[in-house]
């Protein structure tokens, strides 16, 4: 109520509106002005975030879409007069012999990585939930893969998996097994990048699931133990069902992250040999930047397919979240 005191002094200067709030008579002006000014304020507040979204999200997406719908050559890229060709780039991509393998590899890569990352992450989370001595230290150590720059971990993996001088093959031959051409054989290259990516993704699952475990009341476990439920039974009847919301989020976030994994594959195998570990992400890069003569159109088309896939799963995520908020 501090404002009321100075107001009368100003009143003569600001005649109409000040009066309008005090007295109803000139109702028409108020009715018009009132909604207008809060709306202005609302827009003004929205402006920075809208501007940000438009500049850094909407415009690049629009440009990418535009790139994928035009026939860009290096010449037309520079001069900016690429002819509009509709869906030709998408047709080129669909007809490309790389399309089917890339789709398969992307699906396999994503599915296998998710399953293993989640299973290992959950097992470790339950393990560390016991709170034994040094558990905090050990848990911190498990975060290392997450903290390392991807280029470091991917290069290290590719050295370890080197056919001739890698440590993995050295261990295998020590065990009396033949060497495996991890990165250079078409039947192993996809498996190798999957292994590396699982290793990188486990900490994320561990952290999120571990925090989920904290929210399950300890009393439930005690009661179940009193009723004679074993550890296995307690896991399946208490931990797993109560962790479901957290699991759903972890899996969906993991899915979106895994779909777009690029660095690891590119550093370890470049999508090869003979496209045997090409995913949509590496294929898009290969088309747009991996050649002396870039094919921007098809590259952008593949990128858009990835965006659509991620968007579809993003919508699933939003729905799940809404459901959880309601329940």
């Amino acid at each position, binding site marked *: 109520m501090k*404002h009321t005191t100075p107001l009368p002094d100003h009143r003569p200067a600001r005649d109409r509106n000040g009066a309008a709030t005090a007295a109803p008579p000139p109702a028409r002006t108020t009715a018009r002005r009132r909604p207008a000014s809060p709306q202005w304020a609302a827009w003004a507040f929205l402006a920075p975030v809208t501007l940000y979204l438009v500049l850094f999200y909407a415009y690049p997406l629009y440009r990418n879409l535009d790139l994928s719908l035009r026939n860009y050559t290096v010449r037309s890229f*520079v001069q*900016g007069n690429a002819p509009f060709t509709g869906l030709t780039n998408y047709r080129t991509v669909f007809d490309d012999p790389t399309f089917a393998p890339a789709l398969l590899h992307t699906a396999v890569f994503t599915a296998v990585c998710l399953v293993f990352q989640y299973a290992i992450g959950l097992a470790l989370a339950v393990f560390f939930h016991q709170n034994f001595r040094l558990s905090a230290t050990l848990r911190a150590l498990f975060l290392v893969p997450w903290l390392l720059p991807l280029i470091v971990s991917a290069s290290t993996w590719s050295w370890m998996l080197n056919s001739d001088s890698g440590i993995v093959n050295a261990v295998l031959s020590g065990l009396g097994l033949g060497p495996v051409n991890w990165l250079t054989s078409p039947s192993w290259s996809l498996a190798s990048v999957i292994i590396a990516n699982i290793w990188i993704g486990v900490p994320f699952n561990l952290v999120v699931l571990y925090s989920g475990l904290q929210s399950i009341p300890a009393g439930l476990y005690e009661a179940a133990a009193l009723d004679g439920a074993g550890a296995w039974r307690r896991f399946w009847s208490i931990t797993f069902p109560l962790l479901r919301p957290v699991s759903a989020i972890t899996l969906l976030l993991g899915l979106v992250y895994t779909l777009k994994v690029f660095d690891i594959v590119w550093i370890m195998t470049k999508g090869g040999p003979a496209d045997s570990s090409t995913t949509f992400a590496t294929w898009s890069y290969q088309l747009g930047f991996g*050649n002396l003569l*870039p094919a921007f159109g098809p590259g952008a088309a593949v990128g858009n397919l990835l965006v659509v896939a991620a968007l579809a799963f993003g919508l699933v995520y939003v729905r799940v979240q809404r459901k959880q908020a309601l329940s």
Partner: protein
Amino acid sequence: MNTSARRRLTAAVLTVLAVSSGATACSSGSGSSSAKDADSKTYTIWDPYPQFDKTSAWAKLLDGCGTKAGVKIKRTPFDTSDLTNKALLAAQQDNSADVLIVDNPVVSTLAEAGVLTSTDDNKLDVSKVSPNLLAAGQSGGKTYGTPIGANTLALYYNKAVLKKAGVDIASVRDWTSLTAALEKVKKAGKKGITFSAIGTEEGSFQFLPWFWGSGAKLTQLDSSEGVSALSLWKNWLDKGYAPNSVINNTQTTSWQEFASGDYAFAENGTWQLANAEKAGFEYGVIPVPGASGGEAAAPTGGEFVTIPVQSDTGRYATSQKLVSCLTSSQNLLATDTTLSYVAPTTEVQDEQVAANAELKPWVAAVKAAKGRTSDDLGTKYPKISEQMWKAVQSALSGSASPKDALGSAQSAVK
């Protein structure tokens, strides 16, 4: 009162917005002008030599040439693989550097994009440059720049390993004798040969001496000669003369394998000479042999100095002075010595050999070398090259036979 408070707030927000947008308008204005170099006395040079910092001889040379031409130099080094796209983007924004130094197979792509001026416009004198090197920068009868230096591939060999295996290097004259030497090396318990067959341009670069050495032509990948070249590599891998890791080797990792001292041969470039001195064993260099003897043509590496198109054509005269200074005989000698390159003119090549006799096989190799985009392949080369490295990868990894791999490569090029 409620409204007035809101109104005040609105006004405040609007003021803030107005001020900030005014500020951004200002800053974006000044930003764009500085990017375009309002100062006409500053000339920009982009090069792919990030290894040279401000205190390097190369940077000083650029500054020196700038001073001579009466302008200031602003140099930006890029990673080679980044430079093509950066140059294209800059051209799209009409913001190209005044002088651009790029890898030679990129020149025809940039020329096709209309980014580069030809010697007709920029009046560069390229008469002294060896024609086989200049060819990489020529397309459609025009020349788009001048080489700053050249490098190429040859076979390094480890004298101790060959001695142990009882191989006389003079006996290695064609593919049969080379394979026989590799067999002896393997029997002696050492490793044969290492090269790079990675799925990038590097892989094609390393395969080309064998491909051309068989007599094959880039316009016909699946000719019987081409298949014989790929079969040679495939056979080496199958027999264990070459390690399986070549499929993923860059030229640097391949060199590291050779530097371990276990390998008899390594296919690598002029730029490794300095490292070879440090390797700690005696080495020699022979040209890559052709299928039935003689020297195979190796592809030329090395950069071209070019002058990109500017909206202000008045800048070409000074740019031309800068490039002439950079590629004058005296400066070429200094630059090519630091880069470990072979000079592009006979005159400077002779000086190089006089100063360092070890360069002799390299000068010979460069004279026999061939540009990847030569034979007027121009922008067709990148497509052919991509299919070629894919075929090499398919064949070596065993997912297709050399014949099938090259066959599908050829049909994909069309």
